[in-house]
């Protein structure tokens, strides 16, 4: 736990907002000094546009920008940094695949498979694509324990995946249940039935917390965001297999992504630049590499362990303190679960719980967390969600319990 003792000091928000108990890293993470400094350095010292400039500060910006691409590629164990496309966020990364490859390969009567535990950003783009192209939209359910309701040992998956399944879109870690899906096994089984299936993984809640290796995972695309892993907002990553990226249509047209334009035709750059039209979030992408370095310096395995211990402790403490009054969602086994604890507290509305906790400087999320199909499945209008990251500790859980006692006191036994 030593690595985590002094982590808080590296996040200026804790000096500027003393007493903040931040339990909403699943929505966005806090930012360390190293990231803020790097961002400020770009804006103060060499805030030029990339690629086009022949002057030194533009070349410096290009160099720093491309360094991030290298670091991201190494971080994911990608074959080449050409497989790393920068977008605005996970949502844009997923939409990019749905709009380009999705519209190229999904036709009438084909199938798209996703799960009920998806964030809207890996659900709605596929649902809409299915509507548009007359495809069948299949949704894998969850069971009462919070796992995907199919056995990926080959027994039930033939009922879900078929030769006509063009896309399997699935989340690595649920942003509500915390469930870590056995993505590698799922892909293995799915490919046994249909080797041509395109697998798109939403890794927004995985890459910040787990050691993710695209070479091992076996997916075709993987999307995540910088801002959930200590980095700046406005930066998303799409990793894709180079051969697929090469045959895909561009997503947006404009500056930076072309080789030659004439009245008669336009030729496009190779990936990843083909997908990066317009000036990107240069400073933010440059600073993003500091976030990755920060995580690597601690080590993803240690981070995973730290979060697991905290989430498990939170889960057990809430159960012990409030018993039947608290309804906890997601798997009981924290080997299969990330640092997310979603719950409903008595009959209190999640917004009331979150507002009263806010009075105690505790930041939790309340609502449906962009996962309405899942909340409908859980028969809950909304839920409260506490999530843990490197700057959280056991004291935060004690204060959460204290805060919930205050909720009881204020709202009584309604």
């Amino acid at each position: 736990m030593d690595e985590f003792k002094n982590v808080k000091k590296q996040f200026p928000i804790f000096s500027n907002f003393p007493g903040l108990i931040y339990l909403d890293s699943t929505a966005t993470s806090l930012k360390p000094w190293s990231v803020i400094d790097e961002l400020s350095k770009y804006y103060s010292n060499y805030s030029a546009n990339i690629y086009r400039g022949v002057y030194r500060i533009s070349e410096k910006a290009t160099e720093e920008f491309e360094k991030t691409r290298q670091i991201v590629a190494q971080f994911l164990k990608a074959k080449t940094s050409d497989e790393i496309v920068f977008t605005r966020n996970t949502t844009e990364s997923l939409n990019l695949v749905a709009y380009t490859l999705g519209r190229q390969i999904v036709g009438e009567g084909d199938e798209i498979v996703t799960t009920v535990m998806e964030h809207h950003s890996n659900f709605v783009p596929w649902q809409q694509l299915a509507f548009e192209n007359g495809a069948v939209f299949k949704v894998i359910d969850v069971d009462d324990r919070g796992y995907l309701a199919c056995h990926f040992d080959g027994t039930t998956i033939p009922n879900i995946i078929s030769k006509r399944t063009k896309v399997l879109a699935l989340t690595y870690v649920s942003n509500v249940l915390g469930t870590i899906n056995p993505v590698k096994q799922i892909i293995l089984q799915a490919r046994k039935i249909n080797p041509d299936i395109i697998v798109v993984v939403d890794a927004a809640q995985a890459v910040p917390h787990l050691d993710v290796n695209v070479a091992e995972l076996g997916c075709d695309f993987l999307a995540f965001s910088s801002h959930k892993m200590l980095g700046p907002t406005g930066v998303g990553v799409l990793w894709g297999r180079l051969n697929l990226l090469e045959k895909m249509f561009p997503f947006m047209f404009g500056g930076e992504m072309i080789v030659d334009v004439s009245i008669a035709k336009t030729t496009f750059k190779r990936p990843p630049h083909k997908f990066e039209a317009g000036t990107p979030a240069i400073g933010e992408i440059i600073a993003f590499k500091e976030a990755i370095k920060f995580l690597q310096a601690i080590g993803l395995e240690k981070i995973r362990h730290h979060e697991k211990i905290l989430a498990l402790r939170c889960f057990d403490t809430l159960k012990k303190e409030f018993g039947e009054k608290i309804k906890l969602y997601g798997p009981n086994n924290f080997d299969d679960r990330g640092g997310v604890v979603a719950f409903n507290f008595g009959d209190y509305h999640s917004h009331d719980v979150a507002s009263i906790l806010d009075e105690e400087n505790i930041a939790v999320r309340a609502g449906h967390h962009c996962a309405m199909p899942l909340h409908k499945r859980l028969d809950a209008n909304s839920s409260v969600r506490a999530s843990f990251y490197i700057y959280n500790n056991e004291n935060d859980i004690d204060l959460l319990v204290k805060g919930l006692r205050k909720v009881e006191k204020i709202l009584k036994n309604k």
Partner: protein
Amino acid sequence: MSIYSELILDNYENPRNVGVVKKPSKRVSVSNPLCGDAISMSVRIKKGRVAEIKFEGTGCAISQASSSMLTEYVKGKEIVLLKNLDKKFIIMMLGVELGVNRLKCALLPLEALKKLLVEY
């Protein structure tokens, strides 16, 4: 200052005008899918005034208290005057400072009232 003032908590714990009015002139339902709040409101209008108004539904303390207080306020009032009720009035009525998100909860009953009175 806490948004859970005595006034709001009192209206949350003991909401006024809960139910459905008999022989309603109109009945409407509104909801905020973002948080699952849902209110249905019914009104009986007599001689251009609100003779009776009731609400029922599920939601947070703020939306429930706001519904209770708003229905209490409009009872017996002339419809012409009620058409002017706006966000500013709701904030004044509740007497607490609400952030943008919680303000949506507070405004849900006003949306219901506007729908009820639109053709009168």
